[in-house]
């Protein structure tokens, strides 16, 4: 199990939403030091899984957003920046700013739709957003994350951040996305897309898994079929964490405090 690039959370009592909804994948280009935001509560078992898997590869940062533990659904980020809702407290903002490298812009946004993880889905080049986002927010996204922003719906759902998950290599979307929609999205995002499910048929993809360029974490209910689909679309099969890390280590620019 430990050699698979896709980790299944082995704790049986974790609900699908609980396991990956709390996390956000930090980027992906090998030059960037990927960080993963973690859940603050010590009682959360998912934290230990992440720490055990990722702690030697990338720094793991414990935080809360707006005093809650659902960090993954509230914020959106990539290698260029991190966007936070207006409910983020000043102390949390400062903590994040101190823990992340300087080239990552940490920005708090005044936006009516404050669950940014559910409204924005992005990789390093492109972002899909909720169609009802403000114009200023859209400009901020383009500015802070350095991406091209597209207002889209996925399978008729406006909450794009929760119904799709994509990285620089591939993407997984809501199972009921039609073929034409899939093609359109694929050309927009410039990555191969697949309509699939996670956590035994759950349509809410981003709530059940979290992914970056070289690894993915899924909820414990994910079936083997779903796992194989995820591995193939995100091209994780050949990628072994150790080999990637060795490659990355030379170009890691961060200073370990």
């Amino acid at each position: 199990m430990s050699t698979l690039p896709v980790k299944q959370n082995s704790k049986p009592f974790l609900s699908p939403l609980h396991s990956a909804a709390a996390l956000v994948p930090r980027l992906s280009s090998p030059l960037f030091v990927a960080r993963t935001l973690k859940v603050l509560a010590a009682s959360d078992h998912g934290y230990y899984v992440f720490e055990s898997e990722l702690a030697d590869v990338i720094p793991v940062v414990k935080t809360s957003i707006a005093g809650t533990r659902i960090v993954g659904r509230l914020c959106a980020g990539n290698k260029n920046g991190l966007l936070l809702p207006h409910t983020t407290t000043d102390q949390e903002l400062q903590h994040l700013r101190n823990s992340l490298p300087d080239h990552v812009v940490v920005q708090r946004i005044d936006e009516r739709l404050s669950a940014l993880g559910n409204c924005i889905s992005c990789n390093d080049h492109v972002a899909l957003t909720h169609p009802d986002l403000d114009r200023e927010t859209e400009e901020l996204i383009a500015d802070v994350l350095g991406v091209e922003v597209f207002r889209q719906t996925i399978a008729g759902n406006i909450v794009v951040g929760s119904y799709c998950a994509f990285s620089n290599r591939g993407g997984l979307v809501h199972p009921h996305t039609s073929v034409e929609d899939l093609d359109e999205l694929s050309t927009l995002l410039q990555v191969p897309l697949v309509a699939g499910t996670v956590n035994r048929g759950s349509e809410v993809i981003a709530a059940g898994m979290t992914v970056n360029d070289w690894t993915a974490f899924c909820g414990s209910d994910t079936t083997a079929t779903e796992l194989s689909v995820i591995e193939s679309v995100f091209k994780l099969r050949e990628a072994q964490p150790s080999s990637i890390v060795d490659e990355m280590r030379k170009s890691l620019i961060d200073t370990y405090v």
Partner: protein
Amino acid sequence: MRLEKCWFCSSTVYPGHGIQFVRNDAKIFRFCRSKCHKNFKMKRNPRKVKWTKAYRRLHGKDMTQDSTFEFERKRNRPERYDRNVAEKTLIAIKKIDKIRVAREARHHKMRMKGKQAIERQAALTELEKSIDLVKAPASLLQESQITPKIKVKVADTQPQVEHMEE
């Protein structure tokens, strides 16, 4: 913990005080006490309610534009924590407060300037017009008929020294 401003009167709301109202369009209204909250529920416009900061600013009673206000803006893009900067900021906060208070006092003084002269002039005109409230007209007439005492300067004469006749 963050010290917010009351939406109605603009005073600071400390932790443990006040009410926060979230409208359906996700706009948050914070009130420092029930007085402001009740006024809001009555749909009163703070710009028309005399004791609020909004009214005072709008009508020029309080300072509106000043560079010291720029320091208190809410910032959404934090900077990495630097101990020296933090130390200097704390000192600066005290100094800026002092300067702001001094400027507000000066603004008030400028606003009240010329008030004494106007008051004195108004008092004089009132005195002339309504003197009959104080003194009876008959006494006024008597006063005008009495010739004023004239002072005459007397030449200084040397006192004759009386010698004792021997």
